[in-house]
């Protein structure tokens, strides 16, 4: 599986390189390191979100409420910042993580304790969290002039020539990589996706692990709430509306199987990057941004067709000559 998985990521990486190559034949500036850094920075939030969604999908669940969580948490931190500009940004980030955690934990508890399918739970909380944003804000917007300069500037500050936002993405990617490949939690997440029944017999608490992954995706949603609001400097009920499907799309393009158990950190990151490159390239090559939706739709369908080819099961090998072949 691992060799095969690596294979799949290499193919995706190759597709991305070819894509960049094709664009740069006509617009050489696109492949410029500075521009690629910009693309990475632009895609940071999607990459982080895709990782949060990945752990959910690996356990055969789905979280449709991530974008609503992002919207709600973003509003909380924006309003806090507008009312109390003195609160330091790191504390605000902790608050964002905590709020996101609570929202994720609500999903997780409903899935764990009441055994309601995650798609139903998060379909419900998708509307609830976004509605709650309206109740919280009274429908008002928080825009740039109400936000403190630190609030807006934090993620834009450069460290070693790279913006803090990109550093946060790199940090999160590293963290997920360690968790998924080097910890018991990571193993349990894969095991549950591969074979939930066997996981129970192996002494893994399936329900509790599912609860934990929803807590993780909740925290990710919360973190991205702050990152999103401070990046686009507006907090409203409409923030990231419908974005939950983009996150899932990044995962699918990254080769994460919706049936659970198959997928990797590298895949999720590359899947997000693929979408990010397309949205950055369209204005460069003078195609109307209205094309983007149809292109990512086609990319999703293509990705799932290609992935399914790899996953298709062959018949049993019984004949000796077939075994030798």
């Amino acid at each position: 599986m691992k060799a095969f998985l690596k294979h799949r990521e290499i193919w995706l990486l190759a597709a991305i390189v070819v894509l960049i190559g094709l664009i740069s034949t006509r617009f050489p500036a696109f492949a410029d390191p500075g521009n690629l850094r910009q693309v990475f920075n632009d895609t940071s939030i999607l990459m982080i979100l895709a990782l949060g969604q990945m752990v959910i999908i690996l356990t055969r669940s789905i979280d449709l409420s991530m974008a609503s969580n992002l919207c709600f948490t973003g509003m909380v931190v924006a309003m806090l910042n507008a009312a109390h500009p003195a609160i330091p940004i790191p504390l605000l980030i902790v608050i964002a993580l905590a709020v996101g955690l609570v929202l994720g934990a609500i999903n997780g508890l409903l899935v764990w304790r009441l055994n309601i399918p995650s798609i139903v739970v998060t379909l419900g909380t998708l509307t609830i969290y976004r509605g709650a944003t309206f109740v919280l804000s009274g429908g008002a917007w928080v825009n740039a002039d109400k936000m403190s300069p630190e609030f807006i500037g934090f993620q834009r500050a450069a460290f070693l020539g790279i913006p803090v936002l990109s550093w946060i993405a790199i940090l999160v990617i590293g963290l997920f990589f360690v968790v998924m490949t080097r910890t018991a939690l990571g193993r349990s997440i894969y095991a549950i996706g591969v074979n939930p029944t066997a996981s129970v017999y192996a002494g893994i608490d399936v329900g509790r692990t599912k609860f934990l992954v929803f807590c993780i995706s909740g925290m990710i949603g919360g973190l991205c709430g702050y990152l999103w609001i401070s990046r686009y400097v507006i907090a409203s009920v409409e923030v990231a509306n419908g974005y939950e499907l983009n996150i899932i799309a990044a995962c699918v393009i990254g080769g994460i199987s919706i049936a659970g158990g198959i997928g990797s950190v590298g895949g999720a990151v590359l899947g997000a990057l693929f979408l990010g490159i397309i949205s950055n390239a369209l204005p460069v090559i003078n195609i109307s941004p209205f094309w983007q939706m149809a292109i990512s739709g086609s990319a999703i369908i293509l990705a799932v067709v290609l992935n399914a080819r790899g996953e298709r099961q062959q018949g049993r090998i019984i004949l000796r000559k077939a075994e030798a072949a």
Partner: protein
Amino acid sequence: MTDIPAPRRIPDRLDKPLSSAIFSWEALLVVVAIAIFAINSFASPYFLDPYSLSDLTFNFTEKGLIAFAMALLIISGEIDLSVAAIIALASTMMGMAVQAGAGTPVLVLIGIVVGLGCGAFNGLLVTRLGLPSIVVTIGTMSLFRGTAFIILGDQAYKGYPESFAFFGQGYVWWVVSFELVLFLVAAVVYWFLLHRTSFGRRVFAIGNNPVAAQFSGVRVGRIKFILFCLTGLMSGIASVLITSRLGSTRPSIAQGYELEVITMVVLGGVSILGGAGSIVGVVLAAFIMGLVTFGLGLLNVPGIVMSIFIGLLLIIVIALPIVWRRLRGGR
């Protein structure tokens, strides 16, 4: 082997205790519907007016039409997230036809054919290539709506013929709208299809155990393909109604409808895991969602807050029987 009793006559069915009818999902939904109805009529003096009640029905008829086909699809173990995007694409095509000078019959035909075509495309991808429908339809959702965006950008199509307005705005008799009649007819047709035909039986069999169904001679792929086509067809019909009601087409038309349709289906007692559900439940759920949105609308509650109630309703109605069983089970 003398002590094995001789074959007994096995009864067709046992008399069901009354409690099973009282605690059925449909009964629960009826209670919820009556409660919301009562609350609404106390809360707003305008609610019990026949014209208000007629307006109410527009809140669920279009989504309800899709929900019937979606119910069958979900019972069979699949899902279609692209229904709202199909509405957008079909509406865009109708808009293009209007620009080309098409008349009402052609417009309706285009709406229905585009819907059917989109459904068939989903069906082919799922059944021919064996892909998971949730992912396929997330993809086609972007593709269909994306195509509408490519064609329309930030423009809108207007100028639909006057006769076209009947479908979404016309009344058949007194306060009974064309949409409501269509909804009720579709409810009867789908009820019959699901609960009274061998096709419906096979849908249930596939949802409960697709492998055993295939071994039993059920043409699983063909039936699923038909279900995707039906869902596309109903989305096309809904597109005609919505376009007619609004009198214009924007690519963002019916945004987010897919989740409302699915909420309706699940609220109606259809198992999201497939294999169980009833059309009566979906009809009741459609009424409940209409009642909630309309009642809150009369109280000037903004739409976004209504969605909280819908979301809560979904989770509470699903969780209630589980919690109830636990409490009675003494755990």
